[in-house]
């Protein structure tokens, strides 16, 4: 397991580039890009441009989200920003403000 985890209580300010899965339950400000999956856990605060192949949001995200595969916004999530992804699910109870671009 070499996934990157940002646990609760930890804040990263800057740019995070990765090849592996990234899981955030803490705070990230700046930019996040990975070739793999991104999980923004509940309680996480992300103020960043997020790019990944599979992006799951359960926490607060402010910034544009780009996914090569899909974006999944779960109940309780809060997303402010534009989404660019071929596939998108927004669960009941999630809040989202922004534009969606589902051009494949």
């Amino acid at each position, binding site marked *: 397991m*070499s*996934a*990157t*985890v*940002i*646990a*609760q*209580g*930890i*804040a*990263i*300010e*800057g*740019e*995070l*580039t*990765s*090849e*592996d*899965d*990234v899981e955030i339950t*803490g*705070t990230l400000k*700046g930019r996040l890009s*990975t070739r793999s999956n991104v999980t923004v856990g509940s309680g996480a605060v992300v103020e960043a441009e997020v790019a990944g192949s599979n992006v799951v949001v359960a926490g607060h995200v402010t910034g544009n989200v780009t996914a090569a595969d899909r974006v999944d916004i779960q109940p309780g999530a809060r997303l402010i920003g534009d989404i660019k992804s071929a596939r998108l699910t927004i669960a009941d109870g999630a809040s989202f403000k922004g534009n969606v671009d589902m051009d494949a």
Partner: protein
Amino acid sequence: MAQVLRAMWTWTHDVFVNFHAKSFAADASEKKTIMAEPTTIGTGTFVRGHIRGEGDLEVEGRVEGDVQVTGTVTIQSGALLKANIRGSHVVVRGAVAGDLFAEHVVSLEEGARVLGSIFAPRIGIAEGALLRGRVETGPASEHPVRVVAAKATVSRPTAVASSPARAASNFMSPPAKTAAMREPLPAAPPPARTTKPLVSREESAALTATSQPVRSPSVDRSAPARPTPPARPAPPARPAAVSEAPKTKKPPPPPVVPALKKGARASWKKKAAS
């Protein structure tokens, strides 16, 4: 009959209680594992920026920027950091260019390569670890102030150049001020250390020298949207890091044995024979 009933009751009671105890224990352990999940920067991950907060940190990838956490910082083998690191414990098995500060212990384990100074009450350097820099043991409260004072002069321009939010959240600013106020006074030394002024001057010079390569990434960071350099494997970093340091030092002495051309010795022999 009553005895049998009582026996059955106690048995069922025991089973019930045990079952619940077990399930609670399982719950607790599960929660613990979830809570104990440390922050990890994985092998394929590169962070450019600073990492702050409460909890432990484990680095297997690359980090450029400052690291300041309340828990244990573990730098695994294969990791590559250009950062000043602060934590309660700092364990190094990888490569670090930057200063290490710990509230309790800094331990360099086998495979560690550190280019920078170490300040901690307790310091361990294992066989197979490599260190180039100052080492200072003593109470943790003594060092960061002086170090911050020396470093503040270097770091101030970058702090101003970067965003105001960062400057505001810069943990170094308040201690830097207090340290600057304290600096004119000759740091009241304990009687045992008579060579203190000389040491501190050398130290500040060494600090500026060592902190220069460390500071460079933060300057880079302020440049907008610079493409990230390709990920380098750990081993090549050492020559690069070493090549940074000699700038401040005099060039290495010439080799003891002069380099000779191929066949030079043979020609001497020939001359001697003839």
